[in-house]
């Protein structure tokens, strides 16, 4: 019974909560800028409105352009089944699901970038090139983190890997966990195209990464993309927060409440980073990503010691 409740809560959170993170980030940034800002629920309104709008398709595009957002969203949603939230196991968990989790995002990326190239626009080609290049540098960092977590938890399943991180591990292996966390935070920001890697709100196509890839999408397709991006932030955020705050309240409801709280805290943290930092120059981005890889590699080294 508890398992079924957990699964239902898990699915509800995955479906309902992601846009809220965007709202919290927006509100935090507004506070920093001294504005009132859009309401917390604005991203929900945006997505719903997009699903009610008509579409414009470029004459250059083919079926792939239409399929891209769908496949990406489906891959992200499948990844959502594999990751535990807070102290609760994921609906699907098996040995090696961590590898699948990473690769499902790869599948999504493949289709997003291919859909971008389908338009024949050089801006979108530019965005696609940046996306695939930067993500292939972020990938090793993620896998170093997985090695560390596999070592800590003696498991290859995300559910065990992430729920077994505890305060004891933090006390025993604090330095390693700290390095791991800083590497993961960089990966989180870069994979979700947040500042300092990409500015979701910039007005200039030349400087964008993710937003420029989806310039030509409109209506429901763009809704799918926005929603998928929010979900990806939510999932990688959950990965990060499971490591960062391994707090166990002892009761199921308490754990869920703590998880929701920690996700909002993460959104605030992302908002703060976006408010106090400028976007990096494009040539600096690979360096920061390599640094993230080296940080996670250090954390692996310390845990092996």
């Amino acid at each position, binding site marked *: 019974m508890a398992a079924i409740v957990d699964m239902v809560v898990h699915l509800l959170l995955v479906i309902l909560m992601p846009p809220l993170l965007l709202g919290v980030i927006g509100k935090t940034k507004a506070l920093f800028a001294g504005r009132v800002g859009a309401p917390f629920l604005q991203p929900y309104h945006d997505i719903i409105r997009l699903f009610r*709008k008509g579409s414009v398709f470029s004459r250059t595009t083919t079926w792939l352009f239409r399929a891209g957002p769908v496949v990406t969203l489906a891959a992200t949603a499948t990844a959502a089944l594999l990751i535990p939230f807070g102290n609760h196991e994921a609906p699907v968990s098996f040995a090696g699901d961590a590898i*699948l989790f*990473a690769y499902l995002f790869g599948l999504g990326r493949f289709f997003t970038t291919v859909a971008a190239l389908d338009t*024949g626009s050089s801006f979108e080609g530019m965005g696609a*090139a940046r996306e695939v290049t930067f993500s292939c540098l972020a990938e090793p960092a993620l896998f170093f983190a997985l090695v560390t977590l596999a070592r800590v938890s003696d498991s290859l399943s995300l559910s065990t890997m992430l729920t077994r991180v505890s305060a004891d591990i933090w006390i025993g292996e604090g330095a390693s966990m700290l390095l791991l966390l800083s590497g993961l935070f960089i990966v989180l920001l870069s994979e979700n195209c947040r500042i300092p890697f990409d500015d979701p709100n910039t007005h200039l196509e030349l400087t964008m990464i993710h937003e420029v890839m989806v310039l030509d999408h409109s209506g*429901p397709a763009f809704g799918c993309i926005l929603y998928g991006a929010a979900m990806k932030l939510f999932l990688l955020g959950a990965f990060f927060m499971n490591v960062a705050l391994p707090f166990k309240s002892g009761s199921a409801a308490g754990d869920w409440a703590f998880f929701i709280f920690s996700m909002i805290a993460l959104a605030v943290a992302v908002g703060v980073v976006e408010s106090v930092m400028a976007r990096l120059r494009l040539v600096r981005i690979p360096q920061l990503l390599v640094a993230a890889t080296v940080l996670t590699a250090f954390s692996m*080294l310390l845990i092996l010691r």
Partner: protein
Amino acid sequence: MIFDSGIFPDPVICLCAAAGTIALSGFPGLFLSRSPGTGQRVAALLSVLASLTGLAAAVGLLLVPRSETWLLDWNLPFGPCELAADPLSALFLIPVFLICGCGSLYALAYWPGEANRRTEPALTFFFGLLSASMAFLLLARNGVLFLSAWEIMAISGWFLLVTEHRETEVRKAGIVYLVATHTGTVGLFILFAQLRAATGTFVFPPLHSLDPAAGASVMFLAALIGFGAKSGLMPFHIWLPSAHANAPSHVSALLSGVMLKMGVYGMLRTLFFFRAPLPWWGILLLVLGGASTVLGIVFASAQRDVKRLLACSSIENIGIIYLGIGAGVYATATGNAPLALLCLAGALLHALNHSLFKPLLFLGSGAIIHAAGTRELDRMGGLSRRLPWTSAFFLVGSVAICGLPPLNGFAGEFLLYFSFLSEARSAPVPWMALLAPLLALAGGIAVASFVKAYGVAFLGAPRTQKAARGHESKWPMLAPMALLAFLCILFGVYPQPLVRLAESAAGSVLPWPIVPEWRVASRIPLEFLTGVWAFLLGGCLLAGILYFRRIRALPVAASETWGCGYLAPTPRMQYTGASFSEILTGLFAGAVRPSENVPAIEGPTPHASHYRFSPTESLLERGILPALSWVAGSFSLLRRFQHGQMNVYMLYIFVTLFLLMIWVP
């Protein structure tokens, strides 16, 4: 099984008959110059039938793992002519027959005898000969017989490669190939001479019969040169990109999908002659495999020529296979049987998978080269409108080769990741875990390379007039691609049958009887993967249906691509392949060393100018001269480590610490 019911008298005879038929399939065509195309059709029919027979026999041998020997009493000085099939050779026979059948059918439309009266008969003949020599090579259990088949394979490969020998580039590629393959053969001569010295006969020793004594390492190194050169392992890969790029596409499919694996087979066969391989063999294979994996795909990402890109990505895939073999050998040497089984099964599974998606991509590249009239990616574009089927098949191949779920490329890489990561859980110094991030990096660059290859060739608007007038291929070209694409999807969603075949071959070479707890199926929940695929496909379908109903219910308009306000865009303004890979090539400029010609732009109204970018064959073009100038430069070597890049410095610290950790007990 089917063999016991008496339909097939003996699998080895069956395999020999199939290979013999294929060898002679092109023979009639040599004498039928009066009616062009007839010989080719006869050859295709014979090859397809023989391939089906051979496939059935090979799969049958693997399903009930056993060895069959067939001794030809041949009174020759080099000993009895022994032909045998065991699970290891049976596994490698599968791609031989599959791709031979597919390729000969494909040739009917790709290189029709009617239009190529001069070249077609020889091409068909050598295609059959190459396939058959590979089959005999896998069956041979005598050093001299093996070397004969090896040479026939190498030479017929050369004849196929220089089909268009009137072009300088092709002749150059042919010469490089010939030199490289014979350098490798020298290694094999040393290997078999040593083997004969050790055993007193040219007949192969049984598995695990030799002591890894003093001469063993010489044999290993000789095998590494011979088989490594054939499989395109770095640093022996120099011949590969130009050879595979300049051969006709169905030949490239056979060379890349199958012939490279002959080196892998030879390596495995040699390694397990010994009772226990030495640990440093495994480490050396891992180092070379790792270098091939990363550098191979880095080279691929920089290519402009679609077939060169595919060829370089073969180096990567061979690297991945050798990573699995190296890890498996190391695990065997250190007595970790379950890990050894998992690594070898992963390597063999990846080898099988590669022989599905790489030929698919090469066959697809042949179709687009026909349509666009060029191999240059930057002169294609928009082909998916004119070639919808080829486009779909090429997409399947691209997703599969990136190792993305749910296609078959993922299954092999998953096994390898799993073994590397499971090492991290328990081993005292889990250095093998380092391979997981390495594989992830290569996977990421593979996505970049194949998004580029697919996107630039098939999507967007046509960049040239010729590309705009391209046409879809005829059915003999489409059918083999459809078959391979279907297999890629099938064995991606349901990899169990291939895993079983690979595991059965891997288990047969290990020096231990396989315990059920070691089996892949009992360690990796493959059925969960299939369940997740069902979810993924279901999710795609559900989201797709909702989305398309939504779109249909709402107004839809067509317009031009948003050009950020620019009013007169032309197809030439699209992002090209060279621009797509520019950042990545810049990051790895040390390896790729692209030669660029950047025009100077002067004045407010600059003249028309030209930008040219070409990746170099670094080792080939820079390998020999730098070796000479190295002596001069060696004193300034220290300077190069001091360049002021913080993150590289951090890497130095990490590497040093890691090495210290291994060395200092």
